[in-house]
């Protein structure tokens, strides 16, 4: 069999463009990577210690499918205190294996074959493939530099058809760092309600906003009953490798997601759940310290990039800057490849996050200031060489 028994669906999915840069960069020496999509901090020690302790105590069995009840209770307090949204730990909170599983479950729970899901690009590389795998049709709209990479309600409305079921939003955004304000979300919400759609709101970077707080879509009037929030511990608590996320939303939808989860995953890792419990109970000080450090590094990188002629906005959140490289006349991919080969700095070409990312690169500033300083010097030399 020429297709090696693979399904049509899987064959049609393109491998991520990030993979290619990973392969290139990992073969080279002396590379400074601004291509890493995760914190440079190690998980706060008290979280690691709590997880150790749970293992020592013998907590090595399954938990309830929806996750430890204590953890769901803490999530409920946390969301109420920090994002003004209330969810019942009994029926509206589901602990998942990373935010990624939550995205997968939400889409599988709501999509019938042929349903359309609007995806705002540039965005996290997994949305579109997950929609396809769930049998849906991804429909992309482009946030542009002119509007600081914030999508507008009008743009979304233009993409709506009879088959549209949901829209995926991500604020603060990966890869642009853009944060949708309460006003932005209110006008998007009006369109969503008018067309009776759902929002899948990826709020994994919600804690990491540096100027104004990033509001939850669910906190907007009339949106709680039509929003599935997917988020987790990875970014704010520096817990990417723990693979622990959660999702909250309307009871009927969360229960449907739970049904898929109990058959396909059983439950999220128990030791990770015990760590997360400690993160929510005593981790906020560590989060604040990390936030201060990210904010300082963001300011540093944005100034340095603008000075060297790669113009960029001051992104409100996450840990990415998305500068334009149009001044060099190169494509994103060419820029990234040559920068890596000539100056040993790894960045991710913007077009891997969607067509509208062409002409931009994603630089992660979750790297020590010493490394960032060195990277900016190398990039500045590179840019000077090609913009004459």
């Amino acid at each position, binding site marked *: 069999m020429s297709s090696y028994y693979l399904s049509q669906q899987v064959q049609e999915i393109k491998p991520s463009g990030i993979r290619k840069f*990973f392969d290139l960069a*990992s073969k080279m020496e002396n590379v400074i990577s601004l*291509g890493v999509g*995760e914190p*440079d901090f190690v998980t706060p020690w008290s979280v690691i210690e709590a997880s150790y302790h749970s293992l020592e105590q013998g907590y090595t069995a399954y938990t309830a499918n929806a996750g430890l009840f204590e953890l769901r209770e803490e999530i409920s307090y946390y969301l109420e205190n920090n994002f003004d949204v209330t969810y019942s730990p009994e029926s509206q909170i589901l602990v998942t294996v990373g935010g990624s599983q939550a995205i997968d479950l939400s889409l599988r729970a709501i999509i019938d074959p042929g349903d359309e899901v609007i995806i705002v690009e540039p965005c996290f590389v997994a949305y579109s493939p997950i929609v396809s795998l769930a049998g849906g049709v991804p429909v992309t709209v482009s946030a542009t530099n002119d509007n600081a990479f914030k999508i507008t309600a009008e743009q979304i409305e233009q993409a709506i058809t009879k088959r549209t079921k949901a829209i995926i939003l991500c604020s603060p955004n990966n890869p642009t760092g853009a944060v949708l304000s309460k006003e932005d979300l209110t006008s998007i919400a009006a369109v969503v309600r008018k067309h009776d759609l759902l929002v899948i709101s990826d709020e994994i970077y919600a804690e990491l906003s540096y100027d104004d707080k990033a509001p939850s879509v669910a906190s907007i009037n009339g949106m709680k009953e039509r929003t599935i929030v997917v988020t987790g511990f990875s970014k704010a608590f520096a817990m990417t490798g723990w693979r622990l996320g959660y999702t909250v939303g309307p009871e009927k939808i969360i229960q449907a997601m739970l049904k898929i989860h109990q058959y396909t995953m059983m439950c999220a890792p128990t030791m990770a759940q015990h760590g997360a419990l400690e993160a929510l109970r005593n981790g906020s000080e560590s989060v604040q310290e990390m936030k201060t450090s990210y904010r300082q590094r963001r*300011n*540093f990188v944005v100034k340095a990039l603008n000075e060297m002629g790669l113009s960029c906005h001051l992104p409100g959140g996450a840990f990415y800057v998305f500068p334009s490289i149009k001044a060099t006349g190169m494509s994103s991919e060419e820029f990234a490849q040559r920068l890596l080969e000539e100056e040993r700095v790894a960045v991710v070409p913007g077009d891997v996050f969607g067509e509208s990312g062409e002409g931009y690169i994603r630089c992660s500033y979750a790297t020590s200031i010493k490394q960032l300083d060195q990277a900016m010097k190398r990039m500045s030399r590179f840019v000077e060489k090609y913009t004459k």
Partner: protein
Amino acid sequence: MEQKEIELLKLLEKNGRIDTNTISKMIDVEPDKVEEMIANLEKEHAILGYSTLVDWSNVYEYEGVAALIDVKVTPVRGVGFDKIASRIYRFPEVKAVYLMSGAYDLSVSVEGKTMMEVSRFVSEKLSTLDTVISTTTHFILKKYKHDGIILNDDEDNDKRIMVSP
């Protein structure tokens, strides 16, 4: 401005060699203004100096020992512990002196080239001071963490994969 001053102090406390331009970008204050802030903080004695944390155990052919000494003293009417503390902290061997709550009064950190040298300081200089009642000397065998820095840490070893979504 006070918030920025605290940010500036924390950056300098972590890395005394960080340059003005980097600080300027990080805390979003013009370089001239950063210099001015530092000068003011020095004048106000908020900044006392810029030292380097050396792990002498990694320096070949350097011998040194350190000890923490619990000192019990008789406080003196009118000046309390300050007078005796000042008699102790003036010795160059003494690196730190703290007034403590609890079972003893002063905690004195002493450094010397050999154990003999430190012992001699304690027996000849420290314990013979008028108001000193007793001393208990603890030699430091190994330093694991000092001033917030883990010694022999592999912190620079980035354990993340090179490029990720």
